[in-house]
């Protein structure tokens, strides 16, 4: 009778094994499923253009956009502009993200720091960052500084709020448990608070990435001399619809890439959570 518990554990093992098997990797046809709808749209678009239902001045056929992509890639214009936009996005994100993460943690952990800075952040947060464009142009011209400022500003708030919220919502029972085992402040942060806040931080991260691209597109379209947004504005002046559409598609692809990266990170770091376990 005393050995009842180990036997129970053994009998439960096959159940767990079968459960993990059933949620194992998707088969290849299933992995292609998310691409089905975009492929169908592309097909209809191409057919519509070739059969003359869609006028090329409004929307060129996908094949023509592909031609434009090839032309601009060979001339080096497209890769150079993508590189410029990508660099702007990353640097704005790093500056805004680092500040947001730091303040989010600080205000989450310290009531004093929260009292000092949080209400200021909440006030500034209500200014739409794109409303600052005229002022930012006056300050920085159409320099890199303007884009960096606007992107960092846009990225800051979603990441700050979610980091702060994540730290504050770590289960106090877990913190009490860790304290009762004499964990140092650093261990408490590393083993309890940070992992506990991570799901919320990721929500902020994905939101911030969306804002990052949005801000960059607008600021590049309005005031820039290089980058994808500039390429689109420039092409519009010469009525190059294919290049305009290409620029939009490049933005979509970059946005998707950023989101997929965030999701991959999310799955790898939050593997403990059944919600994020690979389905």
């Amino acid at each position, binding site marked *: 009778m005393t050995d009842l518990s180990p036997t129970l554990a053994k009998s439960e093992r096959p159940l767990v094994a079968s459960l993990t098997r059933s949620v194992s990797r998707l088969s290849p046809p299933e992995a292609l499923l998310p691409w089905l709808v975009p492929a169908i749209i592309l097909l209809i678009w191409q057919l519509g253009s070739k059969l003359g239902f869609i006028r090329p001045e409004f929307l060129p056929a996908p094949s023509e956009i592909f031609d434009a992509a090839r032309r601009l890639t060979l001339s080096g214009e497209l890769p150079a502009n993508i590189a410029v936009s990508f660099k702007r996005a990353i640097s704005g994100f790093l500056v805004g993200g680092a500040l947001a993460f730091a303040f989010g943690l600080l205000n989450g952990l310290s009531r004093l720091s929260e009292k000092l800075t949080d209400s200021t952040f909440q006030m500034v947060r209500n200014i739409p960052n794109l409303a600052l464009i005229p002022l930012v142009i006056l300050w920085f011209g159409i320099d890199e500084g303007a884009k960096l400022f606007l992107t960092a500003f846009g990225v800051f708030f979603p990441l700050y709020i979610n980091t702060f919220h994540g730290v504050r919502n770590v289960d106090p029972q877990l913190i009490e448990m860790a304290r009762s085992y004499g964990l140092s402040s650093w261990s408490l942060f590393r*083993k309890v608070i940070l992992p506990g806040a991570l799901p919320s931080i990721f929500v902020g991260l994905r939101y911030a990435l969306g804002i990052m691209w949005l801000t960059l597109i607008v600021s590049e379209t309005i005031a820039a001399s290089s980058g994808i947004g500039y390429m689109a504005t420039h092409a519009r002046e010469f009525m190059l619809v294919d290049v305009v559409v290409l620029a939009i598609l490049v933005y979509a692809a970059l946005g998707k890439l950023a989101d997929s990266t965030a999701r991959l990170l999310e799955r790898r770091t939050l593997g403990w959570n059944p919600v994020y376990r690979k389905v």
Partner: protein
Amino acid sequence: MFGTLSDWGAIVAPNPPSLAQQEPSEPGEGTPSALPFAAYGLRKAFGDKPVLNGLNLDVRGGEFIAIIGKSGCGKSTFLRLLAGLDEADAGLLAYGGEGRARQPGDVRVMFQEPRLLPWLSVIANVEIGLGEGGEAKTRRERALAALEAVGLGARADEWPSVLSGGQKQRVALARALVSAPGILALDEPLGALDALTRIEMQQLLERVWQDQGFTALMVTHDVPEAVALADRIILIEDGRVTLDRPVHLPRPRQRGSTAYGALEAEILARLLTG
């Protein structure tokens, strides 16, 4: 029985546990040393509401104490003071034979909820119980030994989320015991479990207590559970100990035996009339 606080250690448990020590020895690695414990005139209030009103209790090293009482009587508060999770307003808590102050690692707590960190593997959760420092290999070995003691050695590298409620509580028990504490404080640890799992856990708890010989103080609202496990049943009413009843039943205890049932009925009647 209550009020006799001067005769430290004079209360003789009816069934001295096999490994219980009369004198506390130096706490060393892996060598369990049951700590005696005493509370004198313990007071604690939350706001204007007094919860503990001069509570006195004497516990011999290695004893298994069950603390019962109506909800709000102060039994959980007492356990939190004992474990150092809260500070008393007045009174004295004495640990060890010389009645010294509490030292880190003297008391480990098992809560009603398992409180496992969901982002750490089962074994890493148990390693939390070892606190800071120590070689990674030794830590893992000790944690694995503790897991094996609760019958979960095979689940060491899994996430807590795949375990059942009873298994999670067993991991919490391994975490509490991995550092071989002198006192284990249990705050209704089996309250959330179903009846069958609960009886299994009671047997497991009794077995590890007999093997490792720590002092156990368990808050419970379940009278049969108190009768099944305790050397002494303590009733707390209005922040004071109002009943201190030794349990003279041989172990392993036969549930449903006449003596068992009679004691259960007696305690229950006392609890209801009080």
